[in-house]
């Protein structure tokens, strides 16, 4: 695994973050954490990350969605792959039963539900990174 791969987690629940951080670090990713959307956005602007793990329900509501919208508008950050981690899928799914909920907040995103099995988390992360890599190399051609 490439130690240079940098991930950022934005999630306001330190206990939950501890649970996924160690999985990711064990897989030799370098992991930074921001515990609120504001710090998270600052981190994204000051440092280059390869992937963002974003919580949806933060603070007073779905602040993660607001952040994702901000990313989409940013010409530099819109390319960043985002793994959305959320506990709200069940609620949304009741109104759209049978359909996989895939919000497509940004160009490249995937959704996993809290809590997530370590194996599944790593699969999703590496799949997203691979997709981003392919896209980049296609753009060069």
């Amino acid at each position, binding site marked *: 695994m490439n130690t240079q791969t940098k991930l950022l987690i934005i999630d306001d*629940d330190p*206990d*939950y973050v*501890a*649970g*996924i951080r*160690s*999985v990711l670090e*064990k897989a030799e990713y370098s992991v930074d954490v921001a515990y609120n959307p504001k710090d998270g956005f600052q981190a994204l602007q000051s440092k280059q990350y390869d992937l963002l793990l974003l919580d949806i*329900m933060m603070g007073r*509501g779905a602040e993660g969605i607001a952040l994702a919208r901000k990313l989409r508008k940013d010409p530099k950050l819109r390319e960043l792959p985002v793994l959305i981690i959320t*506990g*709200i899928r*069940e*609620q949304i799914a*009741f*109104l*759209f*039963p*049978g359909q996989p909920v895939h919000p497509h907040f940004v160009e490249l995103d995937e959704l996993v539900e*809290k*809590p*997530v*099995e*370590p194996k599944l988390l790593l699969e999703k992360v590496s799949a997203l990174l691979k997709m981003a890599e392919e896209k980049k190399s296609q753009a060069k051609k």
Partner: protein
Amino acid sequence: MGKKFKILIIDDEEVILDSCTLILGSGNYQLATANNGKLGLELVGEFQPDLVFVDLKMPGIPGLEVLEKIRDRDPNIVTIVITGYATVSSAVEAMKNGAYDFLPKPFGPDEFRLITQRGLDRRRLVLETISLRREKEMLRENFAAIVSHELKSPLGAVQQNLFVLEDELSDKLSEEQKSKIERMKVKINDLINLIHTWLRVISVDVKKLQENFKPASIATVISKAIENVQPQAKRKDIQLVSSVQEPLSLVSGDEGTLVEVIGNILGNGIKFSRVGSRITIKAEEKENSLFISITDTGIGISKEDLPYIFEDFYTGNTGPVVEKSSGLGLAISKRIIEAHNGSISVESELGKGSTFTIRLPVQ
């Protein structure tokens, strides 16, 4: 409470206005008077009274019309009519128009105080009902957000860390220790699922489903539901037999939630059936309706429990406790079926089994 109630009196006779003001003057009220309907209605807007007395017989705008306009403006204002011609018919007419009570002229001070008190008691109740209703609505709306954050998040964090522990300790733990972690995971998962179910019962408006209704095939719904519960059935060696009388018309509905309903009922049947028994699912079309019946030969439901089984959180009091349940599955099912303009009913005999029948109108 320290609220000073506002009372408006509309009557063309100055004597009445004066004497009413005098009678109520000593009480803890705020008073306003108007000597005609037009002025009275203006005051309803400005003064915002809790209680309005309206004389039925006035020059200008008639009393009944004043009543009607007050009701249009705010149906929660309590109105009482004053009538010099205390015929039952005019009072009845006024009460049909929303008046709470009537006061025949002439009246004495005690009579007036009493009816004022009654009117204000009514107003108090009305206000209380409104605020309770608002509170309930807010609770319902906020419930999802509160529950998901305050209950689900911590559980999710616990589960997440448990996953990690299990992973990191996988080569150090004995089989017995692993099975303990496994048990913890299962229990936490059950809790998370229970919270999901509560959320759906309390915070989701089932009527919204109707916005996404499409033609749906009941045969497909049944086979999907069977597929979903098959693992549970296998574990108890229960046979699921379905007989669908094709061709069946389509229903207008939401396949996902219909599958859930059938799945719920099948799941209950499996829970409350003996090992090795069978559950039969039938579907047929009669008189523009589809009837789906699900029959088990399980423990049945006692007569005492039967009327309540579709209520929230009801898990039965009298029968033997076989398996734990949230008491919500049937309640949700009933709501879903009703959102489909259908109905659900049950027949059961203790010790012999139950038959649930769902009726859905065809498209």
